[in-house]
């Protein structure tokens, strides 16, 4: 009878562990609104120049129900020939429940000749439940003749807890209108979500990459998109999509498109969608698309 009681207590403890999060942030540490914004604008009428714009936000937040916004906005216009370099990054560590996190980078560059390089990064580590996390990068570049456009975008999100939403997106738009132009677009989303307990962690992950390139005359376009998600828990939902479009006005271009989606999911009742969509018009077109997924769950109830 004594052993039976011990066993029953162990069972109750197991159920208790499996039905709730392991960290208790039920007490309120204050509902704050935190906003970090950088804005930069540069313009040149006729003279050639070099423009470098660096923007970064860093925050560490502990508490529940916070509204956290990190954004960078950069705008550069060069009517002469020169180079534009834009670097934007957001870093956040948040511990608590019910936080609303918004990380965004906006970059816009216009260069009549020369080089454009845009680098955008978001990094967020969230511990807690019922958090909404948005990570978005948007880059737009227009270049004239004999120019090169490089756009690198990446999001990294780590979320530990239940009922969290993580949305990651990269949007890149490049237009090159001169002969001999080159466009390189690289987009990456990386997400790790770990639910607590054995049931109903119900985390959502959405990862989207969109790249558009428009070039004229003889040009080279490289588009690389990657999504990687690692989720642990039950009732997890993962959506991954890559969209690539290279539309060369006269078709005399070399186009390389590469898209990869990867998922590792451990738990039951998980649902995952992976899709790649590629569209190209060029003399030489090389398209590669792949989806990889590993999902592991227990055996079914008899």
């Amino acid at each position: 009878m004594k052993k039976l009681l011990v066993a029953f207590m162990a069972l109750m403890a197991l159920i208790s562990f499996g039905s709730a999060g392991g960290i208790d942030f039920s007490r309120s540490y204050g509902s704050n609104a935190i906003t970090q914004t950088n804005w930069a604008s540069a313009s040149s009428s006729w003279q050639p120049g070099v423009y470098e714009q660096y923007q970064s936000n860093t925050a560490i937040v502990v508490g529940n129900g916070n509204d956290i916004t990190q954004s960078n906005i950069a705008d550069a216009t060069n009517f002469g020939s020169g180079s534009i370099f834009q670097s934007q990054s957001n870093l956040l560590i948040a511990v608590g429940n019910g936080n609303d996190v918004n990380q965004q980078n906006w970059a816009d560059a216009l260069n009549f000749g020369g080089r454009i390089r845009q680098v955008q990064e978001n990094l967020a580590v969230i511990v807690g439940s019922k958090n909404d996390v948005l990570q978005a990068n948007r880059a737009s570049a227009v270049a004239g003749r004999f120019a090169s456009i490089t756009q690198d975008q990446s999001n990294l999100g780590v979320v530990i807890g239940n009922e969290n939403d993580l949305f990651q997106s990269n949007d890149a738009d490049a237009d090159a209108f001169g002969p001999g132009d080159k466009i390189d677009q690289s987009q990456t989303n990386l997400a790790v979500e770990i639910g607590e307990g054995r049931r109903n962690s119900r985390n959502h992950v959405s990862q989207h990459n969109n790249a558009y390139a428009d070039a004229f005359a003889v040009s080279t376009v490289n588009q690389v998109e990657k999504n990687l998600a690692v989720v642990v828990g039950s009732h997890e939902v993962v959506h991954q999509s890559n969209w690539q479009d290279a539309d060369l006005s006269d078709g005399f271009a070399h186009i390389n498109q590469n898209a990869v989606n990867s998922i590792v999911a451990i738990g039951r009742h998980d649902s995952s969608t992976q899709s790649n969509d590629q569209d190209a018009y060029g003399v030489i077109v090389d398209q590669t698309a792949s989806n990889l997924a590993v999902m592991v769950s227990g055996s079914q109830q008899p």
Partner: protein
Amino acid sequence: MKMKIAATVVLFLLMLISSASAGGNHLSQSNSQNAFSPGVFVSQDATNMGIIVGDGNTLNQKNEQDADASGTMSAIFQDASNFGIQVGNGNKLFQTNKADADIRNLFWGSATAMLSQVLIEQTQANLGIQVGDHNNLFQRNDADAEVENVAIANAFDSLDSQSELSTATATAIATLRNVKISQNQENFAVQVGDRNNLLQNNDADAEVENVAVANAGAFASNDATQTPPTFSNVGGIAQDASSDATASAAAGLSHVAIEQNQANLGVQVGDRNSLSQSNDADAEVENVAVANAGAFASNDAKLDQTASGFASNLGGIAQDASSDATASAVAGLSHVAIEQNQANLGVQVGDRNSLFQSNDADAEVENVAVANAGAFASNDADLTQTAYGFARNIGGIAQGASSDATANARSTLRRVEIVQDQTNLGAQVGDRNSLFQSNDADAEVENAAVANAGAIASTNDHVSAVDILDPKVDIESGFATLNEIAIKQCQKNLAVQVGHNFAAQNNYADGQVEQDLANTAANLHRISIEQTEVNAVVQVGSSAVFQNGGQIDHPNQSNTHIKRTQSNTLVEVN
């Protein structure tokens, strides 16, 4: 002690329920690729890989590829594959590949169309592994390749003259070195467990149509009218009217090749499993290396004089009218080859299993190396004089009218070859299993190396006086050379059964050659049709077997060599 055991059982049961509240994962993977190239090549590569461990899971894998290319050397490469592994019960796995490649409307409409090479290569593969009971696995490959309206030259010249000279010349040249379509499809699946279903299907369609086609048309018309003034004709009046039309078309193509390879491999271990494997291949080559030339020359000359006076026609009246039409068409094609290979391999170990295997191949070659030439010359000469006076016709009246029409057509085709190879191999170990195997092959060659030539010359003259000359000349020549038509059809069904089983095997082959060589002089060296059918069953245990073979040939030419082999073999041990 009993309480201890009871408590342990309850604890284990509760833990099992806690940990096993259904897997039920869902995974959807898709790739969509769309490309257009006006130049060199398009390469598309799509891959899905999914691994799911648990019960009640669904895995959907799909690749869709669409490519269009046009250029002096166009090539499309499409590669798609799905790889899926499921471990657990009640799982579903769907794997599909769909590819579409088109090379169309390339060098269409100009007088000279010269291309180097056109290539389409499609590769599709599915690999599925399921371990557990009540699983379903569906694998399908669908490939469509088309080369249409490529290297087409059109030339047309027309002159409708009111003067005394009308000339029209049209020359069309269409050449293309190589056209090749290659399609490879494979399905591979392994299922271990009971009550599993496996469906494997390959579907390939390849078409080469309206390639290396030259059309030339020349139309010359002369409507010359001369009405001299009404007074005495002292110095003489002459009319010289001619109409010349020349059309030439040349179409050259070195090689046309279609290769289709399809294979299904399925292995099932367990009871009450179902396995279905099918291949369907369709290849067509139509209107390839075609030259058409047409020349039309028309002359409508009219000389009308009314003269009066002392010497109303002292200088004489002369009319000379001629029409010449020349049409020449030359078509050359070296080699047309269609090769279709289909194979199914099924292995089942267990009781109450069913296995269905079928292959269906259709190959058609129609209107290749065709030359048509037509020439029509028409002359309508009219000479009229009305004279009043003392010496009304001293100088004389002369009319010369002639029509020449010449048409030449030459077509050359070295070899047409169709090879169809179909194989079913099934092995079943256990009782109450059923096995169905069938092969169906259809090959047709129609109107290969055809030359048609037609020439018509007509003269219609009208004159009021002497010296009439109206020669008409029609020359037409058509000659077609075809070295060899070869059709090889090989069908094999092989079944190995151990236990109390049922087997049915069927082969059907149709080889057809039709030549329409009207109005031509043909030099056809050889037609050969080789058909081989084999049914073989090895059974251990009581069983029922049905074996059937059918072969049909339709050659309509002499110098035909037909080799047919049919065999049914049964080895049975009770």
